[in-house]
Structure formats: structure tokens, C-alpha cells
């Protein structure tokens, strides 16, 4: 049984009369100890999906799903008090901008100990001891004095380490990392990613890694989910997706990696932007930007169809040579 099982998760905003679907029928599963990479452009619904999973979508946002099971327990209609015992302990999340994700009014120690006090029976000196251990675990130098530091006294990389320490404080079964290195200096990005992956391995956590960085995904993930305009467009084992992308969008994403365009003068790009609330095309959401678009694509909305070892949301999924399979 999968650790996390999401089935047809949708998130809608706006009024009931004019709803906007930010996330539509997303299926996702994560096995214990697995790393799943979720990639896609800004605005493709990656973060919203994860916030919905954490129960952090507020009214007027509406979350619906056929199933949203974590560790065998249905999260969707769980009472808030019950859910709070899981969120922060068994599922935890780190965010893109660590500097603003820590409360400026409290010390690092306070914010770390707060989580421990909420979810563990530790009290008194044991709390402080554990907090110190955690800071050392995320390789913060001079951890003891950092306990009394305020967030504004930390660098971006240091803040993200603190966020990671908070997230792994209660040995979670699943860690969601929402673009954990995007806001950091390039030199620090690598260190943080390595730390994250080492911890994932040593703690045996499941990890959902949301990122723009396909290279990282290629290195570490077992499965890749590609999202576009609130939908999953391709799900594939990592061994497959880089050599044999099945969805035209995935192909375009891969072509836009600088390493893939050796010799070419300009980086390959997909013209246009992700459709927003008012310009959703009927039919396939990629149809206005797709280089292989057919008449059918403009009128009919495709489901996820098996294509090789993957599933892809395309009527004419690409073959092994990267050409659309026209009927």
C-alpha cells in the first residue's frame, strides 16, 4: 500500500457560480521512502496541490477528491483537531522562501521547540536537547548559540536549514519540499539539496520534491509527475522520462534544459504562457502551444492514456523517437 494515495484531487477558487479550477483531477501516489519529483512551470498547480494535501487551502478555496489517503487514513474529511496530529508530525513541508517562512518575532529555538512540544511527549531540558540535536543534524555550525538567534540574524541558507530541522523534528513519514532551493544563492542550493537527500535516506522518509530543476529530479527521484495548468500531463518512472518523454509538454520542458541544447544558438522554448483563469482553451489545455496540435486536440479534452511505461494526457502520445503517433 502506498504511503500517500491521491485520487482525483481538485481545488477550486472563486464563487460557486464562476469557479476557477486551479488543480483538476490530480492523481499522485508516493511509496514509503520514495522520492517523487513534481515538475512544471509556475502556475501549473504544483504548490496548490501540496497545500491542499496539507489542509492549508482556506475558504473560499474548495478541495475535493475521490481519495486522499495518508498511511491508510483518509485526510479529506478528517476533523481539524485530528488532522493537526498528523500534519507537522507525519507529514511536514518546507517552503520556497525560508527567510519569510520563519516568524521574525521568535528565536530559532522557540520555533523548533514549539513543534516538538506539539507532537512529542518531550518536556523541559529534553526539548532543548532535542532541538540542539536537530540543529546539528542539519549541519548548522555553532548550533548552541543559534538556538537563541532570531531569523533576521540568519542567512537564507541557514534559515532553510532551520526550516528543514523543524520539518524533520518529529521524524515524518513524508516530507514535501516546495522548491526548497529556488530562493537561495546558487552556491548554497547544492548544499541544501544534498542535506535534504541525505536526511531523506537516513530517516527513510517519503519525499515529494517540487522543482523547476529537472537535473536534480533525474538524479534523485524514482518517479516524475509533470503538471501543466493544474493537470497532471505525464507520470513516468525517472528512467523513462528523460529518454522517452511521452507528452509534447514534457518534451518541450526537456528541450529547454541548457545542457540539452549543445551547439544550438538559442535555448529551445515553448511559445506562449500557461493559460490563466480567463483563457482556458477548450479541449487539450496545451493545444494553443503544442507543436503537434490536431483538430481533435482543440475540441476534446484528453484523459491520461498509457504510453510505454508512462501515462500521458495526450491523444497522440509521442513514440520512442519523440514523434507524435498520428492515427
Amino acid at each position: 500500500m502506498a504511503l500517500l494515495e491521491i485520487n482525483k484531487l481538485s481545488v477550486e477558487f472563486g464563487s460557486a457560480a464562476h469557479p476557477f479550477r486551479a488543480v483538476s483531477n490530480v492523481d499522485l501516489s508516493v511509496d514509503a521512502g520514495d522520492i517523487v519529483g513534481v515538475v512544471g512551470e509556475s502556475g501549473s498547480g504544483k504548490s496548490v496541490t501540496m497545500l491542499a494535501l496539507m489542509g492549508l487551502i482556506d475558504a473560499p478555496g474548495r478541495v475535493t477528491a475521490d481519495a486522499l489517503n495518508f498511511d491508510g487514513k483518509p485526510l479529506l474529511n478528517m476533523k481539524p483537531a485530528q488532522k493537526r496530529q498528523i500534519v507537522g508530525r507525519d507529514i511536514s513541508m518546507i517552503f520556497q522562501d525560508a527567510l519569510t517562512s520563519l516568524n521574525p518575532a521568535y528565536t530559532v529555538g522557540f520555533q523548533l521547540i514549539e513543534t516538538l512540544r506539539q507532537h512529542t511527549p518531550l518536556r523541559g531540558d529534553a526539548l532543548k536537547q532535542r532541538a540542539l540535536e536537530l540543529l546539528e543534524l542539519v549541519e548548522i555550525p555553532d548550533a548552541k548559540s543559534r538556538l537563541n538567534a532570531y531569523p533576521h540574524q540568519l542567512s537564507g541558507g541557514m534559515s532553510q536549514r532551520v526550516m528543514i530541522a523543524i520539518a524533520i523534528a518529529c521524524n515524518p513519514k513524508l516530507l514535501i519540499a516546495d522548491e526548497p532551493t529556488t530562493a537561495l544563492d546558487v552556491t548554497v542550493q547544492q548544499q541544501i539539496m544534498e542535506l535534504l537527500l541525505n536526511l531523506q535516506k537516513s530517516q527513510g522518509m517519503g519525499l515529494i520534491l517540487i522543482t523547476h530543476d529537472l537535473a536534480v529530479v533525474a538524479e534523485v527521484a524514482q518517479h516524475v509527475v509533470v503538471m501543466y495548468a493544474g493537470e497532471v500531463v505525464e507520470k513516468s518512472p525517472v528512467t523513462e522520462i528523460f529518454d522517452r518523454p511521452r507528452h509534447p509538454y514534457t518534451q518541450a520542458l526537456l528541450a529547454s534544459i541548457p545542457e540539452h541544447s549543445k551547439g544550438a544558438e538559442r535555448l529551445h522554448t515553448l511559445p506562449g504562457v500557461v493559460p490563466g483563469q480567463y483563457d482556458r482553451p477548450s479541449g487539450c489545455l496545451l493545444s494553443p502551444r503544442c507543436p503537434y496540435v490536431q483538430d481533435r486536440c482543440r475540441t476534446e479534452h484528453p484523459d491520461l492514456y498509457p504510453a510505454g511505461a508512462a501515462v500521458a494526457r495526450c491523444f497522440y502520445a509521442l513514440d520512442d523517437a519523440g514523434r507524435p503517433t498520428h492515427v
Partner: protein
Amino acid sequence: MIRFLLRRIGVVIPTFLGITLLSFSLIHMIPGDPILVMMGERHIDPEFYKLAMHNLGLDQPLYLQYWHYLVNALHGNLGLSVRSQVPVMQEFLALFPATVELSFCAMLFAVPVGLAAGMIAAMRRGKVADHGVMGIALTGYSMPIFWWGLMLIMLFSVKLGWTPVSGRIDLLYDIQPVTGLLLVDSLLAHDMDAFKSVVMHLILPSIVLGTIPMAVIARMTRSAMLEVLREDYIRTARAKGLSMARIVLIHALRNALMPVVTVIGLQVGTLLAGAVLTESIFSWPGVGSWLINAIGARDYPVVQGGILLIATLIILVNLLVDILYGVINPRIRHAR
């Protein structure tokens, strides 16, 4: 922090000079003078008028008068009241505790109620509770104070008989003044009945005086909370699985408090200075009514001295607010 404070104090000096100049020129712009007002309709002998003006130093050119006032004020001498011939400072100190006591109790009402109302409104944004609370706050803010005071007196004092109509304490009690604050003095005298009487006398004026600050604090708290609740660290707190109460009271409120403390500081200033209407409705013997009477009587030293003293207090309160910022916000404490 210390450099920050020194800089703040450096700003205070020109402010003081400005205040003395302003209060001096404003009161002298009002037509009439103390002698004319005192004599009223009666005939004044021009010789006597001249003599009286000379004795008060009012026959000197204005710039000399200002200079003398300034020099005396710097020596801590605010002069004698023209009417009572009592030192201004002495009169002020005798009346000020009553105003302090009333202002303090008004804030005791306004701060908790305003904070709670603002937080409830922010949490229930766009719902009935939000519109209800903000509607009440707007009403409180716009309502004429004298009307509100009279309505409360009519209901609670006259119809229901729960609270006394006016004054600070029943005439039955004779409390030895120590601090001038009757709440404290009655406790020092171990007279519980007197203490109860003081409390009963304070309730209505405190509510009336505290209504506007309460409304201002509620609105400020609401908007500050709404802003803070959108912050990333609130999302982090929620992702930790903390209870809603903890998120709001520990994580949001502390950060939302910054602008609210500013507003509270400003309100304390206006309360100390401007309890005039409330003081006159409830016959409260404080500095507000004292100043109003002094303006009517063209009692120059009282008006100038009183305004200077109150301005000093407002400056001190603002300084206190600046220090409080440092306590609330570690970023300010650590800045040099």
C-alpha cells in the same frame, strides 16, 4: 538601541521650542486679555487697568513676554495662574491624577475590547461577525461623545440606578490623598466601601472616554491581523499542526501588535489631553476642564503651562512606544 534613543531625544528639543511658540502665539491671538475678562461688564479705571497689566508683565512687547516665559519654563517655573495666583504646576499636579485615573481606566476598557474585537473581525473576515464588529466600531467612532455619555447616564444611572451620575467618589467618604489616584488611595486607607464607590464612579466615564480609542484600536488590529495572517510564517505555523488559537495569539498577534501599539500610544496622548468633553459631562475634576476654563479666562500662564505639560507627557508616551517597539520586534532591538 541607546543611540536610537539618544537620537529620538535629540528630536524632542526643537519639538519643545515649537510647542512653546505655538501655545504662546495661539493664546495671544484670541482677542481680549485676563483683566478685561475678569472685569466683565463693569467699568475699568484706565489707570488701574494699566497697573494690572504692568503687574502681570503684559504691557511688554510680545517677543519679550515670550522670552521671559521661555526662560522661566526652562527653569521649571511655569508662573502663577492669573486668576488664583497659585503656581500653574501646583494646580496641574492637583488635578492631573484625576485625569490619569480616568484615562488609565478608559484604556483598560479600550485596549482589551479593541484587540479582541479586531481579532474576531479578522478571523471572521467577510462574515456576519466581521461586519457586526466593524459596524459597531464605526458607530462608536462617529458618535458624538457628549450624546453617548448622556445616553449611558440616562440608562444606567437614571433608569436602572446602577451607577452614580457624576463625580469621582461619594461625598460620604473622606480619603486621605496620598497619590491623588482615588483607586490607590482608598485601598491604602483600607476602605473597601470607598474603593467600590470609586470603581462605580469610574465605569461610565471610562466607557465613554474609551469608546473612540476602542474603535480605533479595533480597526487597526483588524487590518494588521489580516496583513499578518497572509504572511509565510503563518503558513509555516499551520504546517506545524498548531492549534488555531496558538497561531493567532502567539504567531500573528505579536507581529500585528506593532502598528497597534503606535495607535495605542497616540490614543493615550489624546486621552490625557482631551478628556474635556467626558470630564465636563461627568463633572470630573481633571485637567481638561481646567484648561478649557483657563482659555475662557485668558489665563495665559495656565494655558501655556498646561499645554506644555501635556505635550511633554505625549512626547514621553511616544518615547515609551518607541522602546516598546524594541521589545516586540527583535529586528529593531538589534539595529544600531
